[in-house]
């Protein structure tokens, strides 16, 4: 790549502009934000899973030197809580309060907050708060929570069922399947029962906040890592009872978020309120134990499926029940991830007959909410395990049964009985490419030979769809999702012809600043060095109600393209006047405005036109001076990224340990903006998928309700030696639904990982008849299965 270049910025591995600060340790993360005179807040959290709070005595804490104040639930008169954004019909209200009012419902739930001169003193003061807890019976298992005599966690609900939502198997065209007919026609009915483990994003940087209330101006500046600052601002204003215009949210560098920082949290209210009441800046940095207890968890589901199949391998119908273990309260997205599981469960297959009941169930655990993948990986686990079980039962190769049931490349748009519309793709080709990359036929032969030598090699296949680019706002409305699915972008050309782009997206490691600059440079046909990207300030950036996610660049990029189209059209109108030509005869190209056919002679640079635009001397009638545009892009439809993964593993039956032999990914996310960054996103998402497949788990003790994995010694993040090298291949089927053809891609890597591992391990142990139906497949769990099978 040359030092300056005006075209072809899409599809190249442009160096990340984010790196210059980060590799020097000069990023500015939330813990690095330290206003003069800042006080420090610490949160007292419930040590019990379920306990009535009969009284909180803060007197000793308040009299400790250096303590400035204590906040308890009694101090929250007039202060609201954050609503659940996704409010499905029939969903009982049990949103997360700012401080446990009268009762704590999970270990780690905030009970009080102390504000002091230093974090050290604030924590000393926590020890001095006396809470009169009356411990109640608790329930941490989702099935036990459904029992008639189970302790009721939210009394007003009457029981622990938050919602029972049914997917009736009617597609977007209103066509219903015939599930009974499918099961009547079936030669076999395959059943599966899957426990998908509770784990989460666990960003290396915990959450944190710095609030700074200016009493004279009556304004709150909040430094926050929220992935959706504008929505936080809207909801925070409502909770605090102050005008939204009084709040400015600034976003520092984010040390990983993975969906967990999308949610609004009690501390957003507590830290803001502390600053308002004390008139001083207040800082709170979550420690790791708090983070594991009180930052949202994800995934955990108990699924039961029945798959009707014909002896020739045709998948006729799918029926299921998904119990989503929601924890004690609904958090920002309600049961959203489990809803997505129900919507996506038929995956890439032509299963026309479908029914699924999704139950959101309360337990005495941390709320289960937003985490990269958002219900998709859970769906893929269910269906991809079921397809493998069917293949084994029918004696058909697992690759072949997938191929024969996949939606064909000529069948798009495809209206799935889960309600989704798939836009484009070539599923069989992705599968074939993955099989070719691992040399599938040779592997199968080798596998048999190795088995004779005592090596248990397994091959696991997992295909996936990722419905991304949420979403047309009108459809979100129909789904009772109370925010919009659009992204806005403002692009301003300065009088020297350089561009500044304002986005509501919040970078959290994906390189959003670089990729959006690439899109702008490509479409303005100027050098990327002449594009500045502004993000992370609600005073400057366009509103987004959906906020940043690894799969949002595709929507945000279109907003940039559309704004630039308006700028180019205006530049042509102004330029035509200056060139004394008919606008019809003038075109934008190579960063210039030129008379068509006379580009050498009659041409102006973008800078020359921009200068004129700001002088305002010769503005065409109907135009305003200046050269900027804002475009809010609401996607016309969802985009569907997809692909296939294949893992090859060796299983040690003595220890239950899994060794990686190979891991191949074929991924199609439409048009790729930056191949190097796309690879990085796939690697990272896959690492998180594999983490939950083999290691990561929030373990609760049934007897005490305690979270046992509340340090990184117990909650195991995958390390260098736990993960394989990944081999990535791409297809590029541009989405017909978005300008530019981009599909969301930051999450897809984690989608099939759990199923792929479970399928590979099951394959390796096929002679023992072991079925891996629970994640994570830790050595201990796997050894238990092997031992029980007499292996």
């Amino acid at each position, binding site marked *: 790549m040359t030092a300056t270049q005006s075209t072809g910025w899409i599809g190249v591995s442009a*160096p*990340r502009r*984010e*790196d*210059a*600060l*980060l*590799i*020097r*340790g*000069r*990023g*500015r*993360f939330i*813990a*690095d934000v*330290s206003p003069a005179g800042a006080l420090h807040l610490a949160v007292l959290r419930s040590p019990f899973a379920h306990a009535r709070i009969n009284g909180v005595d803060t007197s000793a804490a308040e009299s400790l*030197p*250096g303590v400035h104040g204590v906040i308890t639930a009694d101090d929250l008169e007039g202060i609201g809580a954050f609503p659940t954004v996704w409010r499905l019909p029939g969903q009982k209200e049990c949103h997360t309060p700012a401080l446990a009012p009268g009762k704590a419902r999970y270990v780690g739930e905030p009970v009080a907050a102390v504000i002091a001169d230093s974090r*050290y*003193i604030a924590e000393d003061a926590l020890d001095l708060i006396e809470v009169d807890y009356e411990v109640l019976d608790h329930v941490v298992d989702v099935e036990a929570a459904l029992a008639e005599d189970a302790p009721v966690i939210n009394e007003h609900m009457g029981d622990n069922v938050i919602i029972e939502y049914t997917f009736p198997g009617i597609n977007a065209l209103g066509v219903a399947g015939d599930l009974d007919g499918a099961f009547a026609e079936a030669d076999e009915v395959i059943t599966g029962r899957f426990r998908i483990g509770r784990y989460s*994003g*666990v*960003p*290396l*940087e*915990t959450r944190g906040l710095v609030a700074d209330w200016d009493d004279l101006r009556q304004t709150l500046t909040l430094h926050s890592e929220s992935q959706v600052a504008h929505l936080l601002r809207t909801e925070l204003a409502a909770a605090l009872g102050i005008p939204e215009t009084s709040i400015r949210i600034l976003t520092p*560098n*984010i*040390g*990983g978020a*993975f969906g967990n920082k999308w949610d609004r949290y009690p501390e957003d209210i507590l830290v803001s309120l502390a600053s308002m009441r004390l008139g001083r800046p207040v800082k709170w940095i979550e*420690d*790791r134990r708090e983070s594991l207890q009180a930052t949202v968890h994800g995934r955990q589901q108990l699924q039961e499926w029945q798959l009707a199949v014909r002896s020739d391998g045709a998948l006729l119908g799918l029926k299921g029940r998904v119990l989503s273990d929601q924890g004690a309260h609904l958090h920002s997205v309600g049961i959203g991830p489990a809803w997505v599981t129900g919507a996506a469960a038929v995956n890439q297959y032509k299963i026309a007959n479908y029914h699924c009941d999704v139950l959101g169930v309360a337990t005495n655990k941390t709320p289960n909410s937003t985490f990269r993948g958002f219900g998709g990986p859970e769906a893929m686990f269910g269906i991809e395990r079921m397809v493998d079980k069917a293949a084994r039962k029918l004696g058909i190769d697992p690759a072949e049964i997938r191929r024969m049931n996949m939606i064909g490349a000529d069948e798009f748009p495809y209206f799935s009985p889960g309600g989704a519309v798939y836009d484009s793709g070539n599923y069989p080709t992705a599968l074939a490419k993955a099989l070719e990359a691992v040399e599938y036929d040779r592997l199968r032969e080798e596998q048999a030979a190795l088995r004779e030598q005592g090596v248990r090699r397994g091959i696991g296949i997992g295909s996936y769809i990722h419905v991304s680019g949420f979403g047309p706002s009108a459809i979100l409305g129909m789904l009772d999702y109370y925010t919009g699915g659009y992204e806005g972008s403002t692009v301003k050309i300065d009088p020297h012809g350089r561009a500044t782009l304002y986005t509501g997206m919040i970078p*959290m*490691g*994906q*390189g959003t600043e670089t990729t959006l600059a690439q899109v702008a440079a490509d479409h303005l046909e100027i050098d990327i060095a002449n594009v500045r990207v502004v993000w992370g300030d609600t005073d400057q950036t366009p509103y987004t109600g959906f906020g940043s996610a690894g799969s949002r660049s595709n929507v945000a990029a279109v907003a940039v393209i559309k704004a630039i189209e308006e700028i180019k059209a205006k530049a042509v109108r102004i330029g035509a006047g200056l060139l004394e030509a008919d606008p019809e005869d003038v075109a934008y190209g190579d960063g210039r405005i030129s008379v068509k056919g006379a580009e050498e002679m009659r041409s102006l640079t973008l800078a020359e036109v921009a200068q004129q635009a700001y002088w305002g001397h010769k503005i065409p009638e109907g135009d305003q001076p200046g050269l900027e545009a804002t475009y809010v892009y609401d996607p016309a439809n969802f985009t569907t990224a997809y692909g296939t993964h294949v893992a090859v593993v060796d299983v040690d039956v003595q220890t239950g340990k899994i060794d990686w032999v190979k891991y191949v990914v074929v991924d199609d996310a439409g048009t790729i903006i930056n191949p*190097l*960054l796309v*690879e*990085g996103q796939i*690697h*990272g998402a*896959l*690492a*998180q998928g594999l983490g939950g497949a083999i290691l990561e788990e929030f373990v609760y003790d049934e007897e005490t309700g305690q979270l046992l994995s509340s*340090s*990184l*010694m117990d909650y195991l*993040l995958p*390390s*260098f*030696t736990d*993960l394989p*090298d*990944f081999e990535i291949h791409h297809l590029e089927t541009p989405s017909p639904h978005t300008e530019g053809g981009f599909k969301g891609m930051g999450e897809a890597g984690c989608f099939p990982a759990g199923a792929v591992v479970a399928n590979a391990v099951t394959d390796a142990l096929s002679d023992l008849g072991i079925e891996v139906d629970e994640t994570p497949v830790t050595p201990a769990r796997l050894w238990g299965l092997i031992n029980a099978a007499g292996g």
Partner: protein
Amino acid sequence: MAETITVVLDVNGVGKEISVEPRKTLADAIREDLGLTGTHLGCEHGVCGACTVLMDGEMVRSCLLFAVQGAGAEITTIEGIGDGGELHPMQRAFSEYHGLQCGFCTPGMILAGIDVLRRNPDPGPQEIREEMGGNICRCTGYQKIVESVQAAAAEMSKEGVSA
């Protein structure tokens, strides 16, 4: 408030006298008292490696040491590597090979990478994975960090630089 102790910390070649409570960690002292915020805190219990600094050339976790234990040692943080304004080859390699995403683990990773090459100037991928196993990254899946360290090793051997 507890008594404070005066201690001189020699960080990145600059000695500075600070007054700290005995319980203050070295990481907190580096960040708060010396203002060097490139040393990050990810777990504060010695697992993640984000707070890695070099102490007399050895990799240590500054969250597991008290500030007073840093007295008398030469400490190097991410701000102290490289040569004047020049980036260290390890820093350049991380950027070029996309060995970072959010950048939170990166200072510790870069110092750990330098530490590996100090002990073995030409490690293979598996050696790098084993040697760096004490540093956690949540974004990259590690493969591109391994590539970065290998690239830095090649670059340093070409330039005749030692870690």
